[in-house]
């Protein structure tokens, strides 16, 4: 160990700069995925270590202590939960400490090796365009730094003095070109493996979840918690309809359905999720579409209200919300059909009815009182239920307002909302409405998901953004089953159905152009998603579907991969052969002649001039080498007499050389 350390040459300034720049570039996209303060701490420490190690060699002893302290801090930040993000943060911390030990080539190489893990870790957390571009830049820089380190190892001082800035810049360009060429040469093999190497249909081990979840739909909902989610304009899903498109008021994307209410939080009922889907009488109109769900940490699959059937290996529960067996940590695509129901669970079992009416004791007394009062006024029966629902909707339409600025709820959150504030957003409305309906004796539940969508004009598909997250109420009415009631839409329809698409019509021309650019950007991203991010075992099996081969098996994939990988490798070998080949056709032909004679034991010696060799061959075997003397004279003429001989003569010479065989007279030279 000591011996190797002594042997490994020291880094010079430029080598250190390259290595540190590459490590920094690799680390950057990872830092962007970490929580702000962790990223700042780790990044700041890394930067400090890098700057210091450029100037002085640090002693070794503080490093393990520093590493332990930093790891401890990072773990504490994640509350000692070990998740995917914790692992990535630890990797970032390690990368930040590593530059402090940057002395010789070995240090540089191990730093570069670990740095290449950073883009990998980034892609596990996020696959957006920014991460991809930054990751790619980091990888290219790392390759260039590896080139620089290798140049150092070879102790080549280079053609120009290396300390001049323009020489450095030229070196950078050269290295970029070399790195680009290496990547280009390796790319066919990489792509063959990417498309054809058999993918795993299900993972060997689970993807560790994040320790800190990103905002998104979940199994619970308590009013006021979606503030972050509703200002997030990143896409949640993209939908392409095949055939008719639902109108804007039908675009409700069903997610988790909440039945249990504890006074503050709505919760998805676990045991209900295990029951088979309820009975539904579908309406006449149906929509078929393909929905592409962006990666999340959750298992919820959203679908247009109301999906007819769940896709393969996705479970649909009694309330028609769907869950995948694993978190959708990758882009997933589902083909679905939905139809607005005519009757949704027209027979409600007693057990479920009781659950859908249950209100916790000791919460929201004013609302319950109002409910009882309304029920007393309306009477009993299906018509009365509908009247109550209409009355409630009328009430919110007349007296309530939409706002995102809501105070923190107290104990009787629904009371406060209905009687004091009279303003809020979808979470408040749906929660209060469901409680109010339950208080009047109408079974009600809260449905979360997305509402609306924005049509992309380039790709003719619809984007659902995180900010379209929505919560509404389903009330059970006799004969119709569960009926969607959306109090928020009654109050502020523009907040629900109107989207960015309407803004250009408001007269902002500049905004219109920006929207077009946005459309184009998202369209490109969707194309990328389709071709690349969404590729999985299922898509792989259909890879040759356009050629009429459906459902490729693993064996066929292996064969295809071997064939294409072999082709790519053959291409590399061809590059080698081409690199080795003599470029001049005349010289090439001359060497072939030499090899033919070598088979007879009369090959030319490396140092032997052409005419001397021909003389020797003719002396040894006059019959075998009738024309060799002439040919060698012509060859010598071509080679030495005039470099600027006309190319036709050279070609003719090459042809004659190729035609020449020992012991056989060429037709050209022999008229008989």
């Amino acid at each position, binding site marked *: 160990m000591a011996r190797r350390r002594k042997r490994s040459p020291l880094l010079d300034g430029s080598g250190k700069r390259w290595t540190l720049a590459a490590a920094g570039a690799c680390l950057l996209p990872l830092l962007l995925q970490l929580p702000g303060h962790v990223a700042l701490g780790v990044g700041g420490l890394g930067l400090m270590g890098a700057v210091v190690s450029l100037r002085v060699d640090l002693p070794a002893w503080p490093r393990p202590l520093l590493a332990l302290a930093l790891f401890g801090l990072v773990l504490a930040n994640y509350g000692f939960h070990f998740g995917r993000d914790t692992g990535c943060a630890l990797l970032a911390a390690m990368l930040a400490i590593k530059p402090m030990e940057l002395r010789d080539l070995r240090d540089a*190489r191990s730093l570069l*090796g670990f740095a290449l*893990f950073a*883009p*990998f870790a980034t*892609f*596990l957390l996020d*696959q957006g365009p920014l991460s991809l571009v930054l*990751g790619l830049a980091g*990888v290219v820089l790392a*390759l260039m730094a*590896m*080139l620089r*380190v*290798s*140049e150092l*190892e*070879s102790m*080549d*001082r*280079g*053609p120009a003095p290396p300390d001049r800035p323009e020489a450095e810049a030229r070196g950078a360009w050269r290295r970029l070109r*070399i*790195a680009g*060429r*290496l*990547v*280009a*040469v*390796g*790319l*066919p*093999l*990489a*792509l063959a*493996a*990417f498309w054809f*190497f058999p*993918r*795993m249909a299900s*993972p060997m081990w689970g*993807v560790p979840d994040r320790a800190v979840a990103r905002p998104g739909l979940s199994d619970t909902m308590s009013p006021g918690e979606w503030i972050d989610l509703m200002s997030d304009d990143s896409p949640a899903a993209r939908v392409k309809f095949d055939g008719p498109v639902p109108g804007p008021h039908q675009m409700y994307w069903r997610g988790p359905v909440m039945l249990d209410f504890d006074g503050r939080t709505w919760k998805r009922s676990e045991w209900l999720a295990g029951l088979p889907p309820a009975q539904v009488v579908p309406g006449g109109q149906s929509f078929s579409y393909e929905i592409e769900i962006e990666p999340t940490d959750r298992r919820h699959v959203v679908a247009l209200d109301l999906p007819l059937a769940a896709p393969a290996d996705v479970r649909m529960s009694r309330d028609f919300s769907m869950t995948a067996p694993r978190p959708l*940590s*990758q882009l997933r695509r589902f083909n679905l059909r939905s139809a607005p129901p005519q009757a949704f669970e027209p027979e409600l079992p007693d057990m479920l009815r009781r659950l859908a009416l249950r209100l916790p004791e000791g919460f929201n007394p004013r609302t319950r009182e109002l409910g009882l009062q309304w029920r007393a006024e309306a009477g009993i029966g299906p018509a009365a239920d509908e009247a109550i629902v209409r009355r409630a909707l009328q009430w919110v339409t007349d007296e309530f307002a939409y706002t995102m600025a809501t105070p923190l709820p107290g104990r009787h959150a629904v009371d406060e909302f209905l009687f004091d504030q009279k303003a809020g957003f979808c979470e408040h409305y749906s929660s209060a409405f469901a409680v109010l309906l339950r208080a009047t004796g109408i079974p009600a539940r809260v449905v979360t998901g997305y509402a609306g969508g924005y049509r992309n004009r380039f790709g003719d598909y619809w984007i659902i953004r995180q900010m379209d997250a929505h919560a509404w109420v389903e009330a059970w009415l006799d004969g119709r089953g569960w009926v969607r009631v959306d109090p928020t839409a009654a109050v502020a329809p523009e907040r629900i159905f109107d989207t960015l698409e309407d803004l250009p019509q408001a007269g902002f021309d500049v905004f219109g152009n920006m929207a077009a650019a946005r459309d184009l950007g998202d369209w490109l991203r969707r194309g990328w998603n389709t071709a*690349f*991010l*969404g*590729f999985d*075992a299922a898509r792989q099996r259909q890879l040759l579907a356009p050629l009429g081969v459906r459902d490729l098996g693993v064996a066929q994939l292996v064969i295809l991969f071997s064939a294409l990988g072999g082709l790519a*490798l053959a291409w*590399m070998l061809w*590059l*080698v*052969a081409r*690199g*080795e080949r003599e*470029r001049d056709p005349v010289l090439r032909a001359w060497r072939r002649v030499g090899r033919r004679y070598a088979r007879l034991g009369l090959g030319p*010696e*490396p*140092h032997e001039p052409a005419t001397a060799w021909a003389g020797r061959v003719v002396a040894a075997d006059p019959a075998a080498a009738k024309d060799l003397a002439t040919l060698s004279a012509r060859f010598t003429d071509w080679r030495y007499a005039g470099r600027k001989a006309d190319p036709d003569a050279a070609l003719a010479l090459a042809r004659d050389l190729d035609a020449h065989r020992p012991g056989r007279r060429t037709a050209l030279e022999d008229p008989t």
Partner: protein
Amino acid sequence: MRSRWTEPGGRGPAARLQLLARPRQPEPLPVEFDRRRIYVLPTWFGLFFLLLLLTMGVGALNYNNNPALLLALVLAGTALASLVSAHLQLSGLVVHAVNAEPVAAGRPLMLRVHVRADPRRPRRGLRVESGDSAAVLSLDRGAGDATVEVPTTVRGWRHPGRLRISTTRPLGLARAWSWVWPEKPQLVYPAPEAHGPPLPLGAGDNVQARLHPAGDDVHHLRPWRRGDSRRAIAWKPSARRDSLLVREYEEPQGADVVLDWDELSALPREARIQRLARWVDEAERDQRRYRLVLPGQAPIGPGAGPAHRHACLRALALLPGAVEA
């Protein structure tokens, strides 16, 4: 010092593997490297990189994470391409001469390796190794040379053994190398005796003894050249010739020195050779004419100058019976 790769006679698996490497016997130069004699194997860093890629690949396949998978695959492809590139750094390289100035035994032989190649492909930072000595070889406009040290112990012909030309460029993931085993040996002079008696001068009955004219005699005149001392100018002849002439004096020279093998019969054989070698050097240093008489050969000289010295030392070096001390 023996080295594990330049001496093919060693034992152990490494040495046995060496026997399989091309070339398997000494060969005449020039030698062109082609794919049959270029070897490529990963370095330690390359193995580390491989491990890294495997981890990435398995992780990415497991999570079906396409960007991560493509990253691993592109890096793998790049690594493979770097093997191709390393191979091409060597292939087509022609080692057309390996030579060295003769040195006395015990001093390292400075072996110059001359190489040329097609100038269109840049080849820089190749490493030439012989035993523990290494040098950097960079081709400039298609030609280059490097000097490695080869230790010597005995006089006579020294076979430089196998030379290794290698490179870890471009990425340091793999080392490509090729052997060249020049057939032509290099001459090693005998080591001169460290301390010995002075040149055998006053032997008055030497056959070739001849006195030179006294040193103060003017030998001839020649035209003035830059740097000549002003005192040496012969003013009178210069005036006659209308150009400056300079007097040249002849140095006083002693008698020819005869270095006779048979005179040293008291010494053992190698010691005799060493003393004669020392005397040759001393005579050369004192600018004497000298003659070397060896048994069974025609006497060499009398003469002086580098060519004569080389002839004498060569004859001494090639006397039979050289063994490793």
